[in-house]
């Protein structure tokens, strides 16, 4: 019984920690994939269509569905779309997701945190 309490606490902390790491990595990869596909869609159609690109990140479609709720607890304020250096060789499309919620379960760390920003840049060029 004593052994179980000693080893068990360590063991379960470890298992829950592993779940947290896995969950966080999954969330980051899923969001990165969304941002990438949205940036690619924007570069292929109209990079200045910020609302459409934003909607691609949130709903995987260019217009928000009726009464749709974005996945992963995202909101439209978390997605920023910009096209810096227009008219130059460095004209590019930047799609960034920041401040998205990351929920942890580990003891002493449990709670909701804000994830590190995920940013994707697509070079467009002067002749776009």
């Amino acid at each position: 019984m004593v052994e179980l309490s000693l080893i068990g606490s360590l063991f379960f902390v470890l298992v829950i920690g592993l779940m947290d790491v896995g969950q966080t990595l999954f969330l980051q990869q899923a969001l990165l994939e969304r941002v990438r596909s949205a940036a690619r869609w924007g570069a292929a159609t109209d990079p200045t269509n910020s609302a459409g690109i934003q909607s691609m990140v949130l709903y995987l479609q260019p217009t928000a569905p009726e009464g749709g709720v974005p996945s992963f607890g995202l909101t439209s304020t978390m997605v920023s779309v910009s096209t810096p250096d227009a008219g130059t060789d460095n004209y590019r499309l930047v799609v960034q997701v920041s401040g998205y919620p990351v929920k942890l379960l580990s003891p002493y760390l449990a709670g909701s945190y804000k994830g590190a920003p995920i940013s994707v840049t697509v070079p467009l060029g002067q002749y776009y």
Partner: protein
Amino acid sequence: MRRLMITRCTGLLLGADRLRGPCRRLRAQRKGSALVEFAVGSGVLLAAFAGTFELGYTLNQYNRLLTAVAQGARYASLIPYDSPTNTPSAAFLTAVQNVVLYGAPAAGATAVLSDITASNVRLTVTFSNGVPSSVTVSITGYTLYALFGNHLLTGKPQVTYPYQGVWAPA
């Protein structure tokens, strides 16, 4: 003598109920074994965990570098190349290095990994038939620090793209 008894007293391991003579005394001498087992077992387990952590951490860092290098090479393959030889101009080189380090042609605040500088980013332009044909970006002289060993990266990760921009020698 004691070892000899252990080999003879196999009934102890099998949990036999009816033990006689010296074997009965040995049953009381299993006190320290749990601690020893714990020390051996947890040592092995911790080493395995640390190894897993090291592998995952290093792969994560390497993957970040690879993404940054690919982004820089893609940028270099698209913008106008303004040098008549395969030695790029300072502005071209700096812009590509900045894209690798900061994700933008102008220098930013935080680089992709700690302690990485522009000197770690190498750009090679290849000419064929007198025109720029491909650009190669690689990381060199950068050390990935991990628990058990440090990995010095020379020419890794490396990404090559065919040059698709406009050649406009100054």
